[in-house]
């Protein structure tokens, strides 16, 4: 019913389509949701793809429900458990690193209170484990610092939540999504001036290449 992210992500437009269809891994779905919250440039395309889903629903062949009458009775009697949770008001509180709504089921509501682990001087990480086969984490890189050099098995998606960074290909700011896979030897550098916080989702293993890599490896797996 759903595809593993590694099989599904090859570019932004396709990633957005996977989001609209609901076929991404859970953390990738959350990452794209947060991207849409932070950056408006892809919302129109996603709305159109959701309309495409609506068209698909319109055109679907109906399959009769085996318990139509019982379901209707239960709905009108309010006898069914609430399937959905009420909308939670956005409450950024006085946390100066607010977490986008879409990431809250993974990250929680405050970044300050997370169990950050220092990986290197100026580089902190908080791991949320493997979710749907994707390792999921937050990275906090002090302004002007470089991440350790590494390559990837599978696809790494990085959403900038605060600050910005530069890699071989491009410069990324809050709301941007960076793709890296396979052969990219990756050594992103955080912009000067502001600490950079990123939400990262990786399908497959990360392999570290730099001199720090050997030391770094046990943490990254």
């Amino acid at each position, binding site marked *: 019913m759903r595809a593993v992210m590694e099989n599904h992500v090859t570019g932004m437009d396709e990633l957005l389509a*996977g989001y609209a269809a609901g076929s991404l891994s859970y953390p990738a779905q959350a990452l794209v949701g947060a991207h849409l919250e932070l950056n*408006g440039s892809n919302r129109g395309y996603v709305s159109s793809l*959701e309309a495409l889903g609506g068209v698909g629903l319109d055109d679907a062949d109906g399959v009769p429900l085996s318990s139509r009458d019982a379901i209707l009775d239960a709905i009108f009697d309010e006898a069914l458990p609430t399937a959905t949770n009420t909308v939670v008001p956005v409450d950024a509180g006085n946390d100066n690193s607010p977490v986008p709504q879409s990431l809250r089921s993974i990250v929680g509501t405050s970044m300050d209170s997370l169990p950050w682990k220092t990986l290197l001087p100026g580089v902190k990480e908080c791991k949320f484990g493997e979710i749907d086969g994707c390792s999921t984490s937050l990275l906090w890189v002090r302004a002007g610092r470089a991440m350790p050099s590494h390559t990837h098995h599978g696809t790494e998606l990085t959403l900038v939540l605060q600050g910005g960074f530069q890699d071989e290909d491009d410069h990324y700011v809050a709301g941007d999504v960076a793709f890296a896979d396979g052969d990219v030897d990756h050594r992103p550098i955080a912009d000067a001036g502001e600490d950079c916080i990123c939400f990262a989702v990786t399908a497959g293993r990360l392999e570290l290449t730099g001199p720090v890599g050997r030391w770094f490896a046990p943490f990254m797996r």
Partner: protein
Amino acid sequence: MAQTQYFSDLIVKVAVDRDKSAFVELFDHFAPRLKGYLMKQGADDAVAEEIAQDVMVTLWRKADLFDPKKSSASTWLFRVARNRRIDRLRRQKTAELDPEEPSLQPAAPADVAVEMDARLREKRVRVALSTLPDDQKQVVEMAFFLGLSHSEIADRTELPLGTVKSRIRLAFGRLRRLIEADEAVDVD
């Protein structure tokens, strides 16, 4: 297209008047389609019926969150079904339910600039899909409507995986350009 307006009006009646006969009409139109759509994506009969039920419960209880200017009934229900399906898979895996799960959150506030009449949007996306070359249309249907992975598509089409990947990438990029070119024409 008149049908779009008709179903939107029914949802508004449910929201405003708790109109049961309007709801029954919506139920009889959409619940079987939701079930059929989910089964096409590989859900078994019982699961598909359960999610269709979930979606209709949501419609009954949260009809006031529906905004007919922003989406049609079918697009709104598609989104609710998608989110219910994701929540369900998530719950199965984690066993604990996060009270703050943003399932019903509007994905994001739409930009004024990208807000478009719901009917117009559906019409355009339909036209854009029909304009794709057949080989691209086929992979879009498999990836988007059936939710198949690249390797499953490769199996079904007997194409090499690399061809499938690049075709899908091309197809969604082209779909986007078709949709956005259409929008740009309107602005002038």
